[in-house]
């Protein structure tokens, strides 16, 4: 094992993985364990008392009417909420036994390990190659290893065949669906463990959407995926586990009211409100 891994880390993955290699621990079935998490933006409480388990190597969908805090919940998982001035996250988000909300956690490393794909594709105004290579370059990858990483990522994102001859062209010259797959390739290139997707298909046409949904299923072989979507059919098609979020009665604060495997949520939901939402009675 390389010597630098012996240096004390605060990255939750490394420490547990090291232990696992030595046979001292086992990875839990639940990749992310969210407990009693609330997010406040200054005085406004966006989400409250959310408890949710995100299982490993599966697609978890978070659904609910707009404004109930789905994106906020998602962004708290890779601490993108930190970017909002006045944001406060309470509770604990455990990943492999370590709470990523603790102040001792290295945020930069967390964000590499928990990647994010955004609603509108946001490629950098650089070439396709440089977009995907951006993350690995930060890690110090160069030359042949870098090229291989970029190719692998583009292949995993089902984009390689379409762009392999135009790698030097600007990423912005691609169509919307291609740009989103480029952003996915870019995220894959830093070799995350979890991929968070915030309504990744809402800005795309149906054909592009289908491609990305197929991609999601293939990616579960190696990654844990959490997707926020307002499209219930998509959630039903793509996810293994679904969490239903809704505003608390009479408040502007959202919370998870029910979470279980997708089939149950859509056929025999326990909560009346979930039933009303998935059958289209409102929302």
């Amino acid at each position, binding site marked *: 094992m*390389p010597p*630098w*891994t012996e*240096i004390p*880390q605060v*990255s939750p*993955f*490394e420490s547990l*993985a*090291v232990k*696992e*290699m030595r046979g001292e621990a*086992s*990875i839990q*079935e639940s990749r992310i364990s969210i407990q009693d998490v609330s997010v406040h933006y200054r005085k406004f409480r966006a989400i409250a008392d959310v408890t949710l388990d995100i299982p*490993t*190597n599966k697609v978890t969908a978070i659904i609910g009417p707009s404004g109930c805090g789905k994106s906020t919940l998602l962004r708290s998982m890779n601490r993108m909420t930190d970017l909002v001035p006045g944001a406060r996250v309470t509770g604990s988000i455990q990943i492999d036994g370590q709470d990523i909300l603790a102040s001792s956690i*290295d945020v*930069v*490393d967390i964000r*590499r*390990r928990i990647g994010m794909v955004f609603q509108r594709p946001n490629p950098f105004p650089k070439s396709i190659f440089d977009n995907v290579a951006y993350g*690995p370059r*930060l*890690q*110090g*990858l160069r030359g042949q290893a870098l090229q291989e990483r970029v190719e692998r990522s583009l292949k995993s994102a089902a984009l390689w065949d379409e762009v392999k001859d135009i790698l030097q062209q600007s990423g912005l010259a691609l169509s919307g669906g291609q740009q989103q797959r480029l952003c996915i390739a870019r995220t894959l290139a830093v*070799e995350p*463990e979890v991929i968070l997707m915030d309504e990744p298909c809402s800005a795309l046409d149906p054909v592009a959407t289908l491609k990305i949904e197929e991609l999601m299923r293939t990616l579960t072989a*190696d990654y844990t995926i959490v997707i926020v979507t307002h499209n219930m059919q998509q959630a039903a098609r793509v996810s293994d586990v679904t969490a239903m979020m809704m505003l608390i009665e009479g408040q502007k604060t959202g919370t998870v009211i029910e979470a279980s495997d997708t089939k149950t949520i859509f056929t025999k939901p326990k909560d009346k409100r979930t039933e009303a939402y998935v059958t289209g009675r409102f929302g």
Partner: protein
Amino acid sequence: MSETTRRRPQAFTRGNGAGGFRLAWRKGTNTVMLALCALAVVAGVVPLLWILWYTLRQGIAALTPGFLTSMPTPVGVPGGGIFNSIVGSAITVGLGVLIAAPVGVMAAMFAATRANTPLGLALRFGTDVIAGVPSIIMGIFVYALIVLPQGHFSAFSGGVALAFIMLPIIIRTTEEMLKLVPGSLREASLALGATEWRTSMNVLLPAALSGVVTGVMLAVARAAGEAAPMLFTAFGNPFLSFKLSEPIATLPHTIFVYAISPYEDWRAKAWATALVLIALVLGLNVLARGLTWWRVRKVGSVTR
């Protein structure tokens, strides 16, 4: 143990490019560079504070009662003041505003309503050009234009030079303000049968008025501090004069002349005059800012 755990060791080796030394290096660089940015701000603010404090200190020391209201005395004679310079600045700047404000506001109205025509584009281009002309060149231009044919320096030429310097400032700020007035206001007025002229004077201009006033204030602040053009136009005058056809003293020109002179008490007076000038200029700037802030609070979002 499930299927997934057997895959986990793969996951670990996949992610091993990152940690340890390189990450620490990157974070260290991050801290250093961000600290340098904060240091840059200090480097930017310190000169301003130094100038203000030093001018205040030296200026107050040299300030005598009646400084603002008495005439300059010969070198070495105590007392004396800058009354003629104050009057001169008021006259030249006032003349400048008189010329530049109407022309500037009219041109801005043209630019706001006819932005995409050839003349409109040329106007924008022309305004930028004039804004970029160094004030000394403006001074030489007015020298060749007015002083040479007339054969003498004059307050009038000084006012004209300042007008040219103020013009682009007034045009730009007025144009921005006019653009911010909602188009619906204009259409409503025109639909009621008002002519373009009445619409502009009675509806658009009042709506944009405080912005225009702000623009004029900033232009005045700029013009009041210009010494270079005065070297070729107003030229300075040790005596009190109200005539436009004679040379006249102005505050910045007086500061310049006193500052580079070999006389101790003149240099002290330069500080006192500088204090007066900077109080005036900064005061106008703060006032203009305050007006903008007040307007935003009152109306909501009329300005950026």
